[in-house]
């Protein structure tokens, strides 16, 4: 029995077999919906628009253990409930369940719960209830289901990126004014509103014309004439009453007001848009600004702010840089802790192009913890597991794609290696012509490794490999021969005292095994 108009299982009474307790008047509402109790487990389908997001099942409802299945706790937002998505049930059931979800009236997002009437095997599904207002907390069911279907979750409290708290909207006196209020709030207003001096626009312009003429008569040289004219226009209501700013995200509003330097009541015709623009653009976060005077009383400013790109470590200090490599001053460096760390004098101006390349392989990019500029020529990447990846000077994109490919095929970066040298593609070509053995030799030589065993090489199929096994390090060189006879890629991998010396199988297989 459930009250006809309550939610969240408030006031639900379950009568089980053998439950002979009489129901008291206080327990029930005036009107109750009385239904057959359905044994089984609870399935929930989240629906977004027309799209069912799979079904999930509360594991609380494990078969046979629940006596109060209909009694969901009134505050179900604690994470104690475990869910499995999609529901791990044998075949046919999920689809009818989802299909029924999709048959609900269109454009009514929500969640609906159904009970499966058997414990275990698929049985008949009953539609129990619809929740038109499902919770959206991080632990709620619908975001959970959404995540499974690739819809990311943003905490509603941080819909604006967490920069500001959500604003409280003052109640409006009429519908018309409420709509207007919301419309106007889309543009931030920085000066408190105050009733304007009332002038019909036509009267205002006529007045202006007279005032200017009069002023011209009264004064004879430039600045005094200008001052007088401004004072006259100001008197007619041509003064700054509002400043509208669009595109501000991080720049503090006080900094903007200071840069504009035109308080309420300043004659608007005396404000020089070009100068204000220049002053705004000298602020750290502002990339470009455009300034317009909207007569009679509004300054309209459109900003493009700098987009933080990376953290730059220099002389032991961290700085935020943007796409142009410009240092952006901020008091909240911690907010940008997830950005890539770049090191080196010329790192900022090269960071943008590097990051563009790195982003082409998102999984790999994710593992890069720092990028270090070497000799103002090229980059070394530090991966999260202390592997150093040496990128070439040119063709970074090819090298990076190549690394991603070997990592996908051979899980290279999960192995116990120190360094992956991707600079060898040129040498690889040369090596291929000269014979891979020499290339391995040269590589070993460059690394200063001791030549304990002779480097061996054997072109086999499209792969060329050479290995140099030293006392403390194993150096491995791999190249692939393409149809045209050129090595397509090459890399040297240095391992810590890796495989037992003498195990030549390491290079005979196409997959480097350490």
């Amino acid at each position, binding site marked *: *029995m*459930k*009250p*006809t*108009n309550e*939610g*969240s299982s408030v006031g639900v009474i379950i*009568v*089980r*077999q053998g439950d002979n307790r*009489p*129901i*008291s*008047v206080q327990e*029930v*509402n*005036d*009107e*109750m*919906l*009385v*239904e*057959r*109790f*359905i*044994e089984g487990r609870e399935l929930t389908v989240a629906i977004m628009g027309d799209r069912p997001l799979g079904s999930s099942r509360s594991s609380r409802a494990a078969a046979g253990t629940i006596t109060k299945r209909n009694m969901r706790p009134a505050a179900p937002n604690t994470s104690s409930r475990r869910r499995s998505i999609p529901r791990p049930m044998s075949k046919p059931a999920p689809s009818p369940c989802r299909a*029924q979800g999709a*048959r*609900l*009236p269109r*454009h*009514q*997002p*929500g969640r609906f719960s159904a*009970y499966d009437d058997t414990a275990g095997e698929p049985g*008949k*599904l*009953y*539609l*129990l*209830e*619809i*929740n*038109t*207002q*499902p*919770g*959206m907390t991080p632990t709620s069911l619908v975001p959970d289901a959404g995540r499974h279907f690739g819809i990311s979750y943003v905490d*509603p409290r941080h*819909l604006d990126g967490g920069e500001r708290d959500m604003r409280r909207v003052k109640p409006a006196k009429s*519908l018309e004014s*409420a*709509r207007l209020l*919301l419309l106007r709030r889309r543009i931030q207003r920085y000066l408190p509103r105050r009733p304007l001096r009332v002038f019909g626009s036509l009267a205002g312009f006529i007045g202006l014309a007279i005032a200017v003429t009069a002023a011209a008569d009264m004064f004879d040289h430039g600045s005094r004439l200008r001052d007088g004219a401004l004072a006259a226009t100001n008197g007619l209501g041509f003064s700054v009453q509002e400043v509208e700013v669009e595109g501000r995200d991080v720049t503090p509003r006080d900094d903007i007001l200071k840069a504009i330097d035109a308080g309420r009541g300043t004659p608007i015709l005396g404000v020089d848009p070009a100068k204000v623009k220049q002053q705004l653009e000298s602020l750290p976060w502002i990339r470009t600004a455009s300034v317009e005077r909207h007569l009679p009383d509004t300054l309209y400013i459109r900003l493009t702010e700098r987009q933080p790109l990376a953290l730059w470590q220099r002389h032991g200090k961290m700085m935020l840089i943007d796409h142009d490599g410009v240092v952006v001053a901020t008091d909240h460096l911690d907010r940008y802790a997830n950005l890539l760390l770049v090191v080196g004098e010329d790192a900022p101006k090269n960071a943008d192009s590097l990051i563009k390349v790195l982003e082409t392989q998102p999984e790999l990019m994710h593992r890069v913890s720092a990028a270090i500029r070497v000799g103002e020529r090229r980059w070394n990447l530090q991966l999260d597991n202390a592997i150093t990846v040496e990128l070439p000077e040119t063709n970074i994109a090819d090298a990076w794609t190549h690394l991603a490919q070997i990592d996908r095929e051979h899980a290279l970066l999960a192995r116990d290696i120190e360094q992956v040298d991707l600079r060898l593609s040129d040498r690889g070509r040369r090596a291929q012509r000269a014979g891979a053995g020499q290339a391995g030799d040269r590589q070993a030589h460059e690394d200063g490794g001791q030549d304990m065993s002779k480097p061996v090489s054997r072109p086999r199929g499209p792969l060329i490999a050479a290995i140099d096994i030293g006392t403390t390090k194993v150096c491995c060189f791999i190249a692939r021969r393409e149809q045209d006879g050129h090595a397509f890629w090459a890399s040297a991998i240095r391992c810590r005292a890796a495989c037992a010396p003498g195990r030549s199988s390491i290079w005979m297989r196409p997959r480097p095994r350490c």
Partner: protein
Amino acid sequence: MVFNALHGRGGEDGHVQAILNLLGIPYTHSGLLASAAAMDKPLAKQVFRAAGLPVPEGRVASREEIVAGRVMDRALCREADQ
């Protein structure tokens, strides 16, 4: 756009949705009709049934009927537990 995180009376029974409809402001979650219909369980059930969705059998009973203890056929209850 209003992110409607309200629950319970007023927030999910169509009142807020109706106001937002009048103001012409888009909002998240369900619309007025769905919210209002779903808040009234017997009505929601009728809608489900009309759409051909299986719902548990049952009916609306007054307090007097319930206290008197004669709402549904007993055999139904027993059957469910077998």
